């Protein structure tokens, strides 16, 4: 067991730090860089092999050998400097891996590089109002008509749909086929008359998601990834990516540090809350969960780095449920420590208020976060769905009664 990164990786970390200090314009508290500056910074970072590491050079990536430790160092150092590790969003994170695995050569050439440069922005069209966690039941149809698909239906929980140029998503193309078998994975331009985007306001008051309505929307027949009826299988690539994206241990550690600071400043029964026996013990109890997750992250990262992923399949399946439940507990405790003004304030009001609670990852005050935590908990599969996954895939328990396959 070795918790250091070793001299080679530490040199790499140094190199990355120097690169960021030299090239990231906002590095030393300067003004936020413009789009042009970001683009040239990104080009340089790709050139150096820091960004889009697993993507071949011919598609705009930097084509590096897999090295989870270097990737971890890059994530942490870029994060600490506030520098973007490529274009954010579902395009590079989810569509690109899918195209690389299942797309045709034409599709890769048409979409991958512009997506990585941010010239094509994507949204994801999976969920529908009637389907929720049961994706196989989705109803939005795509019917061939001449050399185009004609799409009709309704998607929901589509983040950034109002900003997106294209959607990748699942559509029912084979109405006669049972559930999974009738679904295809299509790419569809968003800027057309048949597509209407309506923001979906959340209980927090903000609208980060949308509904998307299709009324004879069209996309060329060639914009299918994989074959007809294979959409379910094709989408698995990106769903795995999505699951891994949720539950970054660093977010939880930051939140926990914020909680300790909150307790340090708060008062309880007329004394500093941090002097209260119950608060102290509860903090340490929560820290037990936080550290377990942190070290379990080290373990998973090490296993990936050393080709032992099979040993950490179980903790990996648990990441999402563990993290979202833990975050809720942390926030419930925080919500109890804040004063009445803050706990009665509307989410937006709060943002300006609770400076203590601010961290780069958890924007907003405690009340805002307290409400937002539900979003993370529900997104990408509710807690009960996660329990099914852990039970069935992790513990080998049988499927539910009469749950159709």
């Amino acid at each position, binding site marked *: 067991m070795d918790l250091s990164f070793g001299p080679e990786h530490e040199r790499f970390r140094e190199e990355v730090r120097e690169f960021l200090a030299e090239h990231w314009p906002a590095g030393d508290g300067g003004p936020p860089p413009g789009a042009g500056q970001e683009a040239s910074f990104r080009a340089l970072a790709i050139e150096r092999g820091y960004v889009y590491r697993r993507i071949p050079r011919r598609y705009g990536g930097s084509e590096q050998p897999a090295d989870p430790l270097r990737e971890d160092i890059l994530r942490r150092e870029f994060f600490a400097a506030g520098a973007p590790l490529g274009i954010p969003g579902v395009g590079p994170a989810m569509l690109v891996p899918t195209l690389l695995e299942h797309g045709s050569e034409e599709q890769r050439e048409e979409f991958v590089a512009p997506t990585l440069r941010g010239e094509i922005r994507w949204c994801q069209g999976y969920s529908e109002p009637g389907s929720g966690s049961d994706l196989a039941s989705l109803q939005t149809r795509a019917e061939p008509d001449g050399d185009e698909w004609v799409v009709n239906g309704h998607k929901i929980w589509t983040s950034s749909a109002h900003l997106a140029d294209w959607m990748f998503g699942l559509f029912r193309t084979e109405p006669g086929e049972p559930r999974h078998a009738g679904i295809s994975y299509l790419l569809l331009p968003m800027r057309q008359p048949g597509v209407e985007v309506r923001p979906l*306001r959340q209980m927090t008051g903000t609208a980060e998601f949308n509904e998307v309505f299709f009324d004879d929307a069209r996309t060329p027949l060639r914009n299918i990834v994989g074959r007809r009826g294979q959409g379910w299988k094709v989408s698995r690539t990106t769903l795995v990516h999505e699951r891994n994206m949720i539950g970054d241990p660093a977010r939880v550690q930051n939140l926990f540090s914020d909680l300790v600071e909150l307790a340090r400043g708060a008062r309880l029964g007329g004394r500093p809350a941090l002097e209260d026996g119950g608060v102290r013990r509860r903090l340490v109890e929560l820290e037990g969960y936080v550290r377990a997750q942190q070290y379990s992250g080290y373990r998973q990262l090490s296993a990936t780095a050393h080709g032992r992923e099979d040993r950490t399949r179980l903790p990996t399946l648990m990441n999402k449920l563990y993290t979202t439940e833990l975050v809720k507990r942390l926030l419930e405790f925080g919500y109890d420590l804040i004063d009445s*003004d803050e706990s009665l304030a509307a989410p937006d009001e709060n943002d300006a208020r609770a400076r203590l609670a601010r961290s780069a990852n958890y924007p907003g005050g405690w009340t805002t976060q307290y409400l937002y935590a539900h979003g993370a908990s529900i997104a990408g599969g509710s807690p009960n769905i996660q329990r099914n996954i852990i039970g069935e895939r992790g513990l080998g328990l049988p499927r539910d009664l009469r749950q159709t396959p």
Partner: protein
Amino acid sequence: MDFGLSEEQELLQETLRDFVARECPPARVRERFEADGAHDPALWSAMAEVGLCGLCLPEDCGGAQLELLDLALAAEVLGEGGVPGPFLGHALAGLALLHAGSEEQRWRWLPRLASGEAIGSVALAEPDSAWEPERWAARLLEGRVGGAKRLVPHAAVADLIVVGLAGGGMALVERGAEGLSVEPFAGVDGTRDLAGLCLDAVPAEALPGGSEAWPRLRDAGLVLLAADSFGSAWKLIRDTIDYLGTRRQFGTPLVQFQSVKHQLADLATELEPARSLYWYAAHAFDHIPAEAERSAALAKAHITDRALHVAREVLELHGGIGFTWECDVHLWYKRAMWNRAFLGGPDHHRERCARLAGW
């Protein structure tokens, strides 16, 4: 012995349920929640007409002269309905005048409060969760009150505000008084407005019995918040059962999944027996003086805590839709947040309970 509601009390709740269903369906709750101010004069008049503005005020002032239990039963129904507006602060202002006002003050204000013609409110909190007179700084000197108050319900529409003074006295301040400014506060619950008050030598008159009446005022408020939360939480459970009964996953109504069923059974089981906790506290308020203070604090801490827990759990049982603005869950969820924090959170009242037990 009969620890149960009288026929009149059952009837009161039934009548109010009908009233709320008619006058304040969820669409109207939402409308006020999203509007700039939660107070709805038409709804308020309708509430006054059914007697909600003077339930505990004397008959000769136009009230119904009922007990706190009756008022709490009404609060439960209003919580169920998510009814917006100044009910709570108004009721507390009325009790303050009733218990602490001079004969003249009572005659001047109680009839107008009972009829709903005037709206009352209470200004208690000061910064840093100071809900207790020992921690207040507002003072009355030579007929003028100075200080700053936080979290005053419906301050902008109140005709009369009972201001809590350092050490436990109370003073009356009227709407539009010189030196009074109302600072808007964006509160989490759109059905009950809150504001800050800046009192710069505002003309005010003392309520002679203020110091003695303060504990009564607080205890009544705690019981009403508990009752409101109890109603809110049951409303959420029932709505969730209905919604999950219609929503199918993998071909089956969600409510038929055993985990969902058990989660609902657990939530209901933690909640329902607590009904008696607020009944008892309300009954003690009028009939068991020795237990009034502690049982009010216990009911408030326990029920508002349970209710927010219910809200959080049912929100997630709804899935994604529960997290949207257009789903009604958040209206009652935020009401539960308000009830839990207003007059002080559970930790505060649990510590008080421990102290009162001599622990």
